[in-house]
């Protein structure tokens, strides 16, 4: 057994820095608090890399497959002798991989923010929240049991809320942060119900026990059935609901586009690379239970993922706010990951989808963070989010231009960039499982290439916009993270994921299946070509196409009216038929009872207050008369 106890420092360091910056940040110079936060994250990142290298390579854990290790654990709440809630650190391939992803992206975002947020009010507050977020996210991935995960799950929700509402003077930011919080809270309700059902039936919260193939969850005899599915399946579907809320899966995605009101680095960190993949991570964490005990729940995961990715890709083609395009693209890519998990089996080569999902999570974190940070640099230069205000920026922002192009090629799935490898694995897994899902993904791959290059051309080519003041390239603090992430996007594809991160810990051989890879590359190229024709130079084709599909275009432009549907459901149905009667009941029955009690008391006291005259002799009369009356009653009526 190798000692990994030091890994508990990885989440604790950001926590300490959060407290430090949060309490004394306003006394420091802003840049100092930023540097402190960045340094803390640097240490955490260093420790994570060390852990990853030791875990995967130098400690020879691979011989019998990668096992999950508990580096550290304490009992936090002692409920009964059998059921305790622990806090600890669990290391296994996916958590170690997530450590690397989170600390890398978080470190890049910290460095980038030093430049991007310069001169903003609340600079130290921003860095304190970033540290809080890093702490929560690291705690989430390292959780040893599902309850600890739930605690950190809520903490990430809070930090996301705080960071979306960072510009709290802007009403739209406040509304967006509330929306994000409420929607994800609603989904977390499902998560909690799922946890309760699952732990009630298995008697444990512990991940190692839950996911062990001989553990109580998997060997549990089906249990009572409800509506044709076992209790276990229902609990996993509820848990997936929590994951879908956090990962912005259809139909709980409505908060993600609005969450772009937050500062751009936050969007890169939370709403692209780390927090939104928590749902994927959750399903991956419980994957053996899904795959072995509840394949029905896994089918739900696959279809939700597939529908979300198609849905989001179509909307992304019509949006003009660059951050919103990226938000929908994120949702679409997470749909890919969910789908890959959904089509995966357990163990060996069947677990291809599981591996592909985590692989895509890894590469997506790199290139999507890069895209967001690049978009941040563009916004920094032209002070606008709207692509109508942009065009021809390639001369002004050379570094941003190149890195953004790399990210676009990566997400479009062109070899040899990393997106190609991970996306290809997903395609293969989907092909072997379900042809309909495969064709959805195939279509989405084309759409992805199209809308990414639409974005790219609109920003960097297209019309020559005249700017009020010449846009300038971002400072080095901002461009260096871009370059690092660009390198990551290019080379991450060569990591041997099939030997490292697999569903049962055993390495297996994976090859690129050219019969699927070539068509999917081709569809990407087609997407790019169409985008080039339409947006490379200013022309009228986009308008013609939009008019050709006018109704459909309008639908997609308005995001299929999902927000309106939600407003309708909440305002017209829930508020009118549930909340208003409840409010009426509260006001006219519950309140009325209490008010009635009070008024009755008051009236009675008005009636009888004359008896308290303050005249002793009057009291005396009453007392004596009463005493005599009692004596008479006792003597003559009851006959003592």
């Amino acid at each position, binding site marked *: 057994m190798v000692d990994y106890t030091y890994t508990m420092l990885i989440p604790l360091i950001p926590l300490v820095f959060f407290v430090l910056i949060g309490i004394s940040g306003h006394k420091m110079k802003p840049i100092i608090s930023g540097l402190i936060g960045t340094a803390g994250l640097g240490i955490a990142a260093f420790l994570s890399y060390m852990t990853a290298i030791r875990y995967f390579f130098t400690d020879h854990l691979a011989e019998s497959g990668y096992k999950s290790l508990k580096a550290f654990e304490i009992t936090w709440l002692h409920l009964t002798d059998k059921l305790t809630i622990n806090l600890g650190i669990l290391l296994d391939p996916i958590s170690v991989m997530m450590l690397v992803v989170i600390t890398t992206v978080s470190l890049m975002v910290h460095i980038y923010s030093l430049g991007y947020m310069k001169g903003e009010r609340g600079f130290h507050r921003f860095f304190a929240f970033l540290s809080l977020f890093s702490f929560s996210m690291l705690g989430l991935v390292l959780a040893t049991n599902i309850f600890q995960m739930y605690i950190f799950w809520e903490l990430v929700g809070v930090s996301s809320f705080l960071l979306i509402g960072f510009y709290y003077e802007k009403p739209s930011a406040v509304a967006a942060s509330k929306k994000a919080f409420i929607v994800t809270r609603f989904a977390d309700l499902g998560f909690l119900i799922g946890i309760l059902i699952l732990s009630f039936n298995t008697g444990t919260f512990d991940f190692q026990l839950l996911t062990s193939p001989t553990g109580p969850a998997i060997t549990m005899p089906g249990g009572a059935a409800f509506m044709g599915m076992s209790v276990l399946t229902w609990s996993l579907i509820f848990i997936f609901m929590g994951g879908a809320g956090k990962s912005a899966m259809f139909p709980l995605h409505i908060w993600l586009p609005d969450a772009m009101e937050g500062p751009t680095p936050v969007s890169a960190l939370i709403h692209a690379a780390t927090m939104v993949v928590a749902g994927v991570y959750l399903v991956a964490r419980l994957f053996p239970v899904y795959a072995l005990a509840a394949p029905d729940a896994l089918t739900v995961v696959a279809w939700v993922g597939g529908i979300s990715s198609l849905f989001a890709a179509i909307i992304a083609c019509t949006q003009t706010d660059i951050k919103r395009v990226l938000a929908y693209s994120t949702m679409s890519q997470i749909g890919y990951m969910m789908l890959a998990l959904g089509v995966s089996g357990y163990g060996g080569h069947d677990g291809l989808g599981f591996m592909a999902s985590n692989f895509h999570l890894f590469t997506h974190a790199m290139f999507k963070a890069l895209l967001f940070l690049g978009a941040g640099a563009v916004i920094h230069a032209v002070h606008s989010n709207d692509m109508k205000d942009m065009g021809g920026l390639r001369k002004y922002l050379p570094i941003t231009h190149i890195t953004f192009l790399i990210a676009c090629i990566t997400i479009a799935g062109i070899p040899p960039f990393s997106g190609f490898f991970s996306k290809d694995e997903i395609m293969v897994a989907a092909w072997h499982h379900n042809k309909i899902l495969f064709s959805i993904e195939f279509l989405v791959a084309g759409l992805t290439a199209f809308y990414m290059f639409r974005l790219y051309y609109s920003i960097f080519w297209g019309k020559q916009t005249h700017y009020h003041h010449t846009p300038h390239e971002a400072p080095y603090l901002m461009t260096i993270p871009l370059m690092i992430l660009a390198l990551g996007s290019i080379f991450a594809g060569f990591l041997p994921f099939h030997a490292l991160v697999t569903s049962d810990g055993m390495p297996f051989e994976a090859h690129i299946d050219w019969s699927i890879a070539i068509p999917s590359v081709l569809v990407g190229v087609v997407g790019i070509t169409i985008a080039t024709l339409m947006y490379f130079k200013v022309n009228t084709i986009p308008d013609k196409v939009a008019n050709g599909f006018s109704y459909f275009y309008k639908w997609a432009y308005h995001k299929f009216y999902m927000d309106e549907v939600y407003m309708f459901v909440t305002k017209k149905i829930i508020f009118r038929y549930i909340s208003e009667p409840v409010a009426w009941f509260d006001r006219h029955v519950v309140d009325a009872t209490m008010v009635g009690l009070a008024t009755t008391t008051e009236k009675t006291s008005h009636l009888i207050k004359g008896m308290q*005259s303050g005249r002793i002799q009057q009291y005396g009369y009453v007392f004596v008369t009463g005493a005599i009356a009692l004596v008479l009653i006792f003597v003559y009526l009851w006959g003592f």
Partner: protein
Amino acid sequence: MQYFLVISTLMFFIGIYGFLTRKNLITMLMSIELILNAVNINFVAFNKYLFPQNLQGHFFTLIIIAIAAAEAAVAIAIIINIYRNFRSIDVDRVDEMKF
């Protein structure tokens, strides 16, 4: 024995009457003493005629006399304070404690 009881009953009701009708606090105090003494006479009389071999009635009487003395001291102290505050010991004017 009945003479004693007649006397004590008379004293008791005179005390009650005085307590309820007199406006002067001192007279009210005196009425209370009358009531107490009526009780004392009852105790002694019952002890003497019904249980001549016991002494409890006598002791009760002695205790009541002692308590009555203390009570009179307290009552007079209160009356003096009332006088200081109201410049009067008329009980009808001391009705600050109503509702």
